[in-house]
């Protein structure tokens, strides 16, 4: 975008991560789905108790697992874990906030001063993480014309809020950071990562300033955006909007905005905004948390392999390029899927290094395309690791062409059928035997005598044309590599 020539964006992101514990942060009500229904889907207000519904006289008791998960997040992002940290009350009135305050952390968050390294087109960058703190989620409301209905099933679900420094300068950096952070929390097993269900919600703080300037512009906050794409779109729009304001000699107002995904614009929430004075003070119902070195070390020793570590391992052990390794480790689901395909092929006698590249090509190629096309997660298609293993095997044996392989994958994604049945049904078997190919080649040579003569005279480029014609004749089923060899031989022979 041209706008970036004169201006630079400054972006900071606050992500609310819903933790996948069994119970809420301060009471024993459910957080995980059961009987096939998620907490969001069960009967309104049936997942509440006097504590999370904020009845008179109730008190909070902290769920130990929430602290474990918060420490995990801190260690995975190189944070310092505060050995003594406290809870604070954030006071404001809202119908889905039962106590009239949210229990959060203010002066002493559990984790501080970490970072996450990301890689974009322009290279590597370190995004600082100012703090990670624990807090409780609010309920949800549904709005009608002249009333709203409040559902507290979600009230009290544990969150960690991860606050980055204002370190990102482009939409690409922001998107990359978000995806990397999402990978970290899903890899750690502390968050389900389902953005449609609100497991991972992003607030973006963005301002613009003239390129090279030292003085930060006024920032606006775009709240509660629930998909990577929408965050990127919202940021693009907002940056352009702010530049527009400045260019027409206006001043950017510090305000909260929301993203209208249908129209692709950010909208001011100013009319609903009052000057919020949250009156933070230490929560007297919760004693300070003491976290020993031993506790931190135990969490550290139980940490699963993180995206950066896995990526490095893929590069070193499997010989993948940093780019390919990066794509494969961008999500836990993708990385685990990849590893399963490698295992399947190793079981068939493949060398893992040999298997890695073709698998990587399919996953970052056709599979990624299918996911993007439908804006779906890997788990939402019907592809299983065995399918890809088979396609790789068949491709190596020349039984399907590269186009054929893609078609198989696309069909499996939709139907879940076996690779063999698809190859049969859709006639994707590449023709590789001489007895089938020879007649077609002969026919082509007899038809295109002029070009054959030119070829024999030295115009070697025509080989591709010949291959193309035979491919047409065989309905695209001939093995192009083999065909090329046969035609060459035939034409040089006689």
């Amino acid at each position, binding site marked *: 975008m041209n706008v970036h020539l004169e201006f630079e964006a400054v972006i900071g992101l606050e992500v609310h991560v819903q933790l996948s*514990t*069994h*119970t809420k942060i301060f*009471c*024993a*009500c*459910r957080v995980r789905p059961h009987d096939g229904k998620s907490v969001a889907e069960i*009967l*309104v*207000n*049936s*997942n*509440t*108790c*006097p504590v999370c*519904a904020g*009845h008179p006289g109730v008190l909070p*008791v*902290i*769920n*130990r*697992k929430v*602290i474990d998960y918060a420490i995990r997040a801190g260690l995975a992002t190189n944070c310092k874990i505060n050995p003594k940290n*406290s809870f604070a009350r954030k006071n404001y*009135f*809202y*119908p889905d906030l039962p106590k009239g305050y949210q229990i959060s952390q203010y002066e002493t968050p559990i984790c501080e001063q970490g970072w996450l390294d990301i890689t974009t087109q322009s290279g590597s960058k370190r995004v600082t993480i100012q703090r990670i703190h624990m807090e409780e989620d609010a309920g949800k*409301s*549904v*709005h*009608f*014309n*002249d*009333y*709203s*209905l*409040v*559902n*507290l099933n979600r009230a009290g679900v544990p969150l960690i809020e991860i606050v980055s420094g204002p370190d990102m300068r482009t939409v690409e950096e922001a998107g990359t950071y978000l995806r990397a952070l999402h990978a970290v929390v899903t890899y750690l097993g502390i968050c389900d990562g389902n953005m449609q269900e609100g497991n991972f919600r992003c607030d973006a703080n963005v301002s613009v300033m003239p390129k090279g300037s030292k003085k930060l512009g006024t920032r606006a906050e775009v709240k509660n955006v629930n998909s990577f794409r929408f965050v990127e779109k919202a940021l693009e729009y907002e940056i352009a909007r702010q530049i527009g304001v400045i260019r027409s000699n206006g001043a950017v107002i510090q305000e909260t905005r929301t993203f209208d995904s249908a129209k692709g614009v950010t909208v001011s929430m100013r009319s*609903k905004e*009052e000057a919020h*004075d949250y*009156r933070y003070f*230490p929560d*007297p119902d919760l*004693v*300070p*948390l*003491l976290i020993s070195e031993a506790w931190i070390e135990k969490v550290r020793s139980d940490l699963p392999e993180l995206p950066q570590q896995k990526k490095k391992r893929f590069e070193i052990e499997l010989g993948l390029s940093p780019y390919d390794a990066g794509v494969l480790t961008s999500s836990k689901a993708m990385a685990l899927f990849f590893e399963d395909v490698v295992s399947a092929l190793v079981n068939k006698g493949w060398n893992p290094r040999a298997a890695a590249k073709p698998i990587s090509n399919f996953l970052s190629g056709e599979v990624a395309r299918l996911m993007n096309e439908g804006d779906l997660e890997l788990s939402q298609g019907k592809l299983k690791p065995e399918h890809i293993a088979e396609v790789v095997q068949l491709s190596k044996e020349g039984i399907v062409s590269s186009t054929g392989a893609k078609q198989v994958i696309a069909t499996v994604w939709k139907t879940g059928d076996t690779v063999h049945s698809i190859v049969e049904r859709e006639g994707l078997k590449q023709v590789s035997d001489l007895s089938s190919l020879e007649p077609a080649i002969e026919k082509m040579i007899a038809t295109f005598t002029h070009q054959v003569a030119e070829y024999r005279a030295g115009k070697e480029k025509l080989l591709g044309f010949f291959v193309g014609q035979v491919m047409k004749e065989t309905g695209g089923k001939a093995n192009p590599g083999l065909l090329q060899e046969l035609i060459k031989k035939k034409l040089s022979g006689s």
Partner: protein
Amino acid sequence: MIEVNEALTRKVMGLAKLKLSDGEVTTFTAQLQGILNYIDQLSRVDVQGVGSMTHPFDEPTPFREDVVCPSPVDTEGRPKTLLSAPDVLDGGYKVPSIL
């Protein structure tokens, strides 16, 4: 010494979602001024190096293990927390429009 005027009282009323009549605002403002004048003596105490006290004693943190306790329901299976709700529609707490 803080000067309490009606504007400050009204600002604080807004934060606390309390509505006072004009007469009450005047009375309260005067009473608050009196109380705050009394409290002002704290500004003369030497608190250099003194920690802020929220809890009387340093006790270890009690934790709750991550085990589900089913939400309490009455004999007809209705969530007990809903029973005291003044206005419920389709299971949700009904309030004036938030938007």
